[in-house]
């Protein structure tokens, strides 16, 4: 018998990416909601919001924009922008 396979939807990288993106958006929404209504833990939510945003950005680039099939220098250039941007914004927002 063939070995058990994942549901067709999950085998499809593009759709899987979309599911992760939507889920991460919901997570970001929750973090945003709690950060607006909370007194402490702002640091945690701020970092969480930014990291979740740039995780989404990276997935859009890697999967949707097909950087995973692109020459290494292009992909790494993009990765560098994502990492630098995220770090800089985190530093500026938690000062």
């Amino acid at each position, binding site marked *: 018998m063939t070995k058990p396979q994942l549901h067709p939807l999950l085998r499809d990288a593009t759709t899987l990416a979309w599911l992760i993106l939507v889920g991460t958006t919901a997570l970001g929404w929750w973090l945003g909601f709690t950060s607006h209504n909370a007194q402490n833990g702002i640091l945690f939510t701020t970092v969480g919001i930014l990291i979740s945003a740039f995780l989404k950005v990276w997935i859009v680039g890697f999967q949707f*924009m*097909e950087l995973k099939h692109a020459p290494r220098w292009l992909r790494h250039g993009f990765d560098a922008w994502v990492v630098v941007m995220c770090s800089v914004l985190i530093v500026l927002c938690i000062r």
Partner: protein
Amino acid sequence: MMDCAAKSKGEVTTSPPQKHIPGELGIWVFVAGDLMVFAAFFVVIALGHNGEQAEIFAQSRATLDMWVGVLNTFLLLTGSWFVAKGVEKSRTAHDSAISRYFSLGILCGLLFVANKSFEWGAKIIVGINPMTNDFFMYYFVFTGIHLLHVFVGLGVLLLVRNASKRPITARNRNRTIETGATFWHLVDLLWIVLFALFYLL
């Protein structure tokens, strides 16, 4: 062979040859440039978040409807899904089912524009506009420049949709499709960060 059985069960979507620049180099020149410019915009917003205007920023941000932003994010993410799927499938087919993916991507973009107009309209009616304070100045200008990108993106998607109807071997068809799709995903990408900075923080 097991391969063929598995392939015939699932749908035939192909990935491009390994080490392939999606679209063409030129569009990535444009993408890199746009990412630099928006990087400056993002830094400007972040500086306002913690600067002397932190109070004003926090209060103004609170008046934005988060769910409207979430809906816009969802629309662009889904639009990108349609476009990415369309690109994958267009490598092996060119029937109307393929162009439909791009049409749905365009629809998502149009809904985004409608949602944004509704959101801006609601703000302007109660007297909130780019002159109200620094937060709203950045909000309207940066999301406005992004909206310009959306309009251009919709035009680009129309070109992509037309290209997808051409035979697979038509010259430069795949290049046009990939290049246009790359621009659309850039629009999505920029919004993801704007959403986080303006609505969530």
